[in-house]
């Protein structure tokens, strides 16, 4: 293999001598690109946001904003990165640079006060600026009473700018209003904008990487077969698929692994296939890619995505990673449990399909063997007609759930009976679980207030929620029941209004 190299703001540089666990953030700062800031080192504040050229959904290449604090620099071997410094066009010697349109809007509208978060906002904003399907003038229905519409109206600018693009960026000074004004004021990229033009070219190919430095090795196998062989040979290897959890461990808990195997660019893990009886989603597609490629095809996933962490995280995180870490408070498992999803586990000697309901075995433990990879997630068809995802958290954008509840219900249109109920829960036990007793309390019964109230009582007793700094056990338990009552209210209100 050739020497690992990265292109930053158009200039190629060797990754060595950075240690194998070195993040893009530390790498950039070491090189003097100190515009990229560390605010939290766990992907929460966005001060380290940078742009990375990735395979696009609507054009060959997308400029994707990611948290530089969570990405090992070795993972960007052969890739192109642009920082806030690289967005401005350098002026003649002795003259200031010409600002990028997003920089200009932020600067003139008072979008920076202390300025520390600003380069990160610039990059997140630039990513949305260059989103090919950002279309001006899509007005939401102006129904002030409808919470969903109200969300949409306030979170999308007249220029098509989706504020969720900034959901992973924190500012402690401005209160956000001038930043929103700047975001909603940016126009379209000029025809000769080099980053806009770059979108029309092929993205940088993933590069097979073997980078060893300071006792650690970063491996990016070139194929699934090779990845599986490595996992068989090196059972201590840690699989990286997005790395937004691993990066936190490296930074906050000083985790140092001898071998990390990145699988998030393997083509075999990045398919999206529609079969007659299921949709198969590659485990290494980022959540953003799934969101944009499905475009509402699975409504329950559509409800999940805006509430899953932040756009910056969704630009890196994958379903394989979220299921692979097996956290009981991951946001995708409740939804996938309600959808009755299965996982395709691949090993060197073949594949097996495991229902997600049988996958988790304990706190951060699963039936997956160390030599197995999650290759894909299968969602059976047809989907249940009534679905909902309720995430209870302190903050609406980018928070960890106290509890999460996903519903997939099949209610007979004729007699109003619940034919089938599937309910996934997060945050109430050592693993994500199905609310089996509640499902039983609903199935075969009419979808009425009486049934729902009885089932809500059942739901409050599911799992063993605990007290912690996010919520009390009592509140968690109450919210389980409330989520069903809220869903019922929504379905009956909709019935009335239609």
């Amino acid at each position: 293999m050739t020497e690992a190299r990265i292109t930053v703001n158009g200039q190629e540089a060797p990754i060595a001598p950075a240690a194998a666990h070195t993040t893009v953030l530390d790498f950039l700062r070491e090189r003097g690109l100190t515009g990229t800031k560390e605010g939290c080192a766990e992907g929460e504040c966005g001060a380290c946001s940078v742009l990375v050229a990735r395979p696009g959904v609507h054009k060959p290449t997308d400029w994707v904003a990611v948290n530089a604090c969570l990405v090992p620099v070795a993972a960007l071997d052969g890739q192109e990165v642009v920082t806030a410094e690289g967005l401005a066009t350098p002026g003649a010697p002795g003259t200031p640079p010409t600002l990028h349109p997003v920089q200009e809007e932020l600067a003139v509208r008072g979008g920076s006060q202390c300025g520390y978060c600003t380069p990160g906002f610039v990059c997140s904003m630039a990513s949305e600026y260059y989103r090919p399907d950002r279309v001006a003038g899509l007005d939401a229905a102006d129904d002030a009473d409808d919470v969903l519409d109200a969300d949409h109206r306030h979170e999308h600018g007249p220029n098509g700018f989706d504020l969720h693009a900034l959901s992973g960026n924190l500012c402690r000074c401005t209160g956000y209003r001038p930043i929103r004004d700047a975001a909603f004021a940016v126009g379209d990229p000029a025809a000769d904008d080099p980053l806009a033009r770059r979108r029309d070219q092929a993205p940088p190919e993933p590069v097979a990487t073997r980078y060893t430095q300071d006792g650690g090795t970063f491996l990016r196998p070139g194929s699934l077969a090779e990845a599986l062989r490595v996992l068989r040979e090196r059972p201590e290897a840690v699989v990286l698929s997005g790395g937004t959890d691993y990066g936190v461990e490296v930074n906050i808990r000083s985790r140092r692994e001898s071998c990390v195997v990145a699988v998030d660019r393997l083509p075999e893990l990045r398919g999206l296939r529609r079969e007659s009886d299921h949709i198969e989603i590659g485990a290494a597609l980022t959540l953003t890619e799934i969101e944009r490629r499905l475009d509402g095809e699975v409504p329950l996933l559509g409800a999940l995505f805006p509430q899953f962490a932040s756009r910056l995280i969704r630009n890196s995180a994958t379903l394989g990673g979220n299921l692979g870490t097996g956290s009981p408070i991951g946001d995708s498992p409740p939804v996938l449990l309600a959808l009755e999803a299965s996982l395709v586990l691949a090993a060197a000697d073949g594949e097996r399909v495991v229902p997600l309901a049988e996958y988790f075995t304990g706190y951060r433990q699963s039936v997956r063997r160390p030599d197995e990879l999650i290759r894909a997630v299968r969602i059976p068809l047809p989907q249940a007609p009534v679905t909902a995802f309720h995430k209870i958290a302190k903050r609406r954008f980018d928070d960890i759930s106290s509890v999460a509840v996903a519903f997939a219900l099949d209610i007979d249109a004729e007699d109003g009976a619940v034919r089938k109920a599937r309910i996934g829960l997060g945050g109430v036990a050592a693993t994500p679980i199905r609310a089996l007793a509640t499902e039983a309390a609903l199935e075969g019964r009419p979808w009425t207030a009486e049934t729902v109230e009885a089932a809500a009582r059942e739901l409050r007793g599911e799992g063993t929620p605990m007290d912690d700094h996010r919520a009390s056990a009592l509140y968690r338990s109450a919210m389980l029941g409330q989520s069903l009552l809220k869903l019922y209210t929504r379905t009956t209100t909709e019935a009335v209004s239609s």
Partner: protein
Amino acid sequence: MSHLSERPEKAVVGVSMPHESAHLHVTGAALYTDDLVHRTKDVLHAHPVQVMKAHGRITALRTEPALAVPGVVRVLTGADVPGVNDAGMKHDEPLFPDEVMFHGHAVAWVLGETLEAARLGAAAVEVELDERPALVTLEEAIEAGSYHGARPLMETGDVDAGFADSAHVFSGEFRFSGQEHFYLETHAALALIDENEQVFVQSSTQHPSETQEIVAHVLGVPAHEVTVQCLRMGGGFGGKEMQPHGFAAVAALGAKLTGRPVRFRLNRTQDLTMSGKRHGFHATWRIGFDADGRIQALDATLVADGGWSLDLSEPVLARALCHIDNTYWIPNARVAGRIARTNTVSNTAFRGFGGPQGMLVIEDILGRCAPLLGLDPMELRERNFYRPGQGQTTPYGQPVTQAERIGAVWRQVQDDAHLADRRRAIDAFNATHPHTKRALAVTGIKFGISFNLTAFNQGGALVLIYKDGSVLINHGGTEMGQGLHTKMMQVAATTLGIPLHRVRLAPTRTDKVPNTSATAASAGTDLNGGAVKNACEQLRERLLQVAATQLGAPASDVRVVDGVARALGSDKELAWDDLVRTAYFQRVQLSAAGYYRTEGLHWDAKTFRGSPFKYFAHGAAATEVEVDGFTGAYRIRRVDIVHDVGDSLSPMIDIGQVEGGFVQGAGWLTLEDLRWDTGDGPHRGRLLTQAASTYKLPSFSEMPEEFHVRLMENATEEGAVYGSKAVGEPPLMLAFSVREALRQAAAAFGPTGVSVELASPATPEAVYWAVEAARGGGSGAGRKDAEGTRGRTGTTGPTGTAGTTGTTGTGMDDVPEANVPSHA
């Protein structure tokens, strides 16, 4: 119009402009302290040795294992301190302690060739501890009688007579949380030693002079051997007023001992676990109203959670007492204060500096009592406002000279918010939405400007004019995002009569302006602006003499406007550059030291009486919220604010301060939730919310969907530079309107007339329990004293849910996932 407040024609102050560093911010070119590291050769990295126990005496500290770690250069301990081993000014804050006083207390620092080496070295240091019992919560400290510092008592009128005259008497308790500053840039310093042993410290500090003083006393050298510079801070909010000093001293000590540059930067968890926060408070109160709802008497005790050392707790408590009246006339008051000593970080300055805590107590009282009095909360508030022209004074004896502004902003914000129409719309919405309720609340503020301690109310500046006409200004204030430097450049350009681009500003350094006060108390512009103006006036007077000769007119007839000197009634002109050059050749001094002291202040801390404030800042906010009755989740639908900044020096900057302060205040009151491990397990005293994933700041989702800020018009303040008023802190307290709107929305789920108690922060869970209590007709809260029971409006949740509302530090399991975000 006073000399201080009068503006010349074509003044640069008053012009709306972005932050002077905006272009550097957006391109990433703006440098912060830690950005200097890669530009400095041979830097050593400092890493703290934190002890993860809440309390105990150190019986052994073994550093040898650290020295065996490759790349470790030295371990700093108390034995290395040549001067005074104290990070503060009260000799109660040892820089290298013998006793661990809170979970995460740093007892030694390791210097390494790399941060990784220093970290591994710190992990290798062995500390043995004789563990002691720890008081973690405010309640535990009160129970144990663990206090430090002063016991201020503020008294006015005859409280007993006031209660005797009251038709309604209520009493209650209120426990509310502190707040983490969460400046985006964590604490950082870089220390260097020059060839002559001069110590140069780059520090992210709001108080360079005090950083200098403490570095000097730790090193045992006079102040003139230490220079401190602050380029800019990535936010301060009070968290860098006292807290940076010890850290800077560690870096300076390391540099002194090794001869190499030493850098430290706390990571977020270190910053959260080692540095002080806004004080949480416990308040007990009794209040009497007459039959019309006018306050007759208030008897209250405020206990601030000081943490392990005194730090700034005494002045914070004093300001809390001085603000318990907010906008309300309280004829008879007795308010006592205490500072609890707990085994937690040493709580410190935070935007508002106790003022918000004092004001929150009275706003909470009024919010809870209004339904019991059968009054609309707005009506109750308005009835109790200070009235103009009646000679009313605050409980500490200061006349309220602009009482008319309390009512003016109150009325204006109602107009701006279309209050009457929207209240009707809200009533209609609530009538048809059983599961969702809206409410609109209006609250006002009155906030005293000046340091309570009179001596701090002085500022200095150094203004240099070079032969080519360019101007360089230095002043004692620091830039943390508040736009102070922008305003100072505007002041200089205005006073000198030149375009803004002729003025440049140099970073804040202790060798330019000595003995400065902290950039704090919202007073940065008043003090440094007064000093910059004074320096520029000295220069202007000299230059006018020169111009007078050149223009053939008396100096009193010469004006410099927009860079051109002209005499009244004459067409002759003299360009600024020519004027300056001429002055140089005439041997006229082209530099001046400026000075300003706030006149007319008086404060007696012993009797707790006087007029400590130059003036009051005023404002009012109208906030509408919507609460989901299923979950307690809510959103801020619309906020209207009218705020009094005097005549604004820089409207875009001021509006930014108002909006940012409001959202930060809303964060404190609704979202930001500091939780400690209060159980008896091995991690007792550990901060559970020690990362951005667990301590949530307001994000875009908390921003008001509609946000309208108007600055009060024709609001000249005679007593401050160019008629302006301070703006840094006061708007934070406009966020009381969010909390009161949530209280009213929760109440809307129940029958009318129910007093709703709301925990602080009012998280969705807290709001849910408030909604549940309202639905149940209240929890027997707010009984009247007159009925014979000592009515208590406690802060815990509804019956059967005690300990779940989040106000009282509930015993919590140590969660394995405490810091792990769910995303993978």
